[in-house]
């Protein structure tokens, strides 16, 4: 078994209704009038690729090319309209830092809650608690409710919790652009450590230099279609020239 992620013919279609219908009255009015038709929007169009174990896989593309949708499909948040995405191993999605934080709870309580959201046990979080706090540099603010935190502090805490596990597959969506340069460096170092430890990483970034620095293989998406896949330099050069 050498594959970490297997994406087969994934197509993701959204019903893009012109206005959002969420009341029964609107629904019936539209139904009677016969214009309950949706314009269908294809966010991903038969995308297939494999990510090997230990590989660092980059995804590039313009805004709206389907990068985030693809990550959501891989992490199981979205179910594709057709095709399937298989993941071998446990996955830690960093799609948004601090998803699942409760503003009314303290940092300490949120560390536990967020750990549970990611599917960890209490014992595991107990063990890792100190290193999470240390990495986030929030020792003094442990018993302060998150709502009083600055957004940088929240991001630090979120990153620290999500990366404390050694996941088999780490998904990173643009998050390396949060925080100050010092923290960004720290994050990148942490990700490099993981890569050295054999973790498969999927990165989405607009920073082409970052992709070049980190990735082995790059996929270029354009309007939901696969434009190019292959060696980092080759794809990155083509992407630069293509835009």
């Amino acid at each position: 078994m050498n594959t970490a992620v297997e994406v087969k013919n994934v197509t993701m279609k959204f019903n893009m209704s012109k206005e959002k219908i969420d009341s029964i009255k609107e629904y019936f009015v539209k139904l009677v009038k016969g214009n309950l038709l949706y314009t269908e929007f294809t966010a991903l169009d038969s995308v297939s690729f494999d990510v090997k174990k230990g590989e660092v896989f980059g995804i590039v593309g313009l805004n709206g090319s389907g990068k985030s949708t693809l990550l959501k499909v891989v992490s199981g948040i979205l179910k594709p309209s057709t095709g399937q995405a298989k993941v071998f191993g446990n996955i830690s999605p960093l799609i948004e830092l601090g998803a699942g934080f409760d503003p009314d709870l303290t940092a300490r309580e949120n560390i536990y809650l967020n750990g549970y959201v990611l599917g960890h046990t209490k014992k595991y979080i107990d063990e890792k608690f100190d290193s999470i706090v240390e990495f986030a540099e929030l020792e003094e603010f442990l018993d302060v409710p998150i709502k009083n935190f600055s957004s940088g502090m929240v991001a630090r805490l979120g990153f620290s919790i999500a990366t404390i596990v050694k996941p088999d597959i780490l998904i990173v969506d643009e998050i390396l652009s949060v925080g100050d340069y010092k923290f960004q460096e720290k994050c990148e170092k942490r990700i490099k450590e993981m890569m050295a430890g054999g973790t498969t990483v999927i990165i989405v970034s607009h920073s082409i230099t970052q992709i070049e620095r980190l990735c082995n293989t790059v996929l270029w998406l354009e309007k939901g279609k696969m434009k190019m896949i292959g060696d980092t330099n080759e794809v990155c050069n083509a992407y630069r020239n293509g835009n």
Partner: protein
Amino acid sequence: MKQYLTNFLKYKSLLWNLVVRDLKIKYRRSVLGFAWSILNPLLMMIVITAVFQNLFRTNIENFPIYYLTGYLFFSFVTESTNLAMTSIIGSASLIKKVYIPKYIFPLEKCIFSFVNMLFSFIATIIVMLVLKVPITPTFFAFPIPMLYLFVFSVGLSFFLAAANVFFRDVAHLYSVFTTAWMYLTPIFYPMEMLPEFMVEVVTFNPLYHYILYFRALVLGNHIPDLRTNMICIGFSVIMLILGLIFFKKKQDKFILYV
């Protein structure tokens, strides 16, 4: 099936901790904290008892207990289903960003309300001791109707939570429905007060059966027969299955509507 079970076990600690979180948040800013769960039904009981024994002159034996047992069950069902109904929409930020089995959210609200009900149950026991109502052996069978009620609520919660994602009107309709439901449930009136055709109608109300069962244990000192048990189980299981099927069918589309 095995896959579902391992997945559930993985998120078991999340489920439990969401319940703890809700309890913490509920009582965080109140001075008396958890005592409110006991005080609230006690105060309600005093008001209702005063109104009904003086104004309407009901002659139900042990009226405070009669009322509290009905109130306990009815408020559990309405609280759990109402919280569960908005639980999916309320967790939109989570659902969009992390994979979590979605049934966790309505289920969590039901467990949270169940814990609240157990607190309020303490109030009932206190009143029983104060009024010197004898605690009979059958009293200790109380977990049985509570379990039936819980299963029923979970089923209804699944249904409402899923429906409310697609049509927000469900919440408005349901609030009207619960008002009607309250009057169709013998919480503070005796069954004899109802006209004959209404008695027929009320027997289709699952809550009526659960509350009668509960009262039989607490006040009547007898355990209901097999037939009553079958009716209760029937209502619970059918509701659970319907709720689960509907929820499962719709859950992959939640993310597009929340």
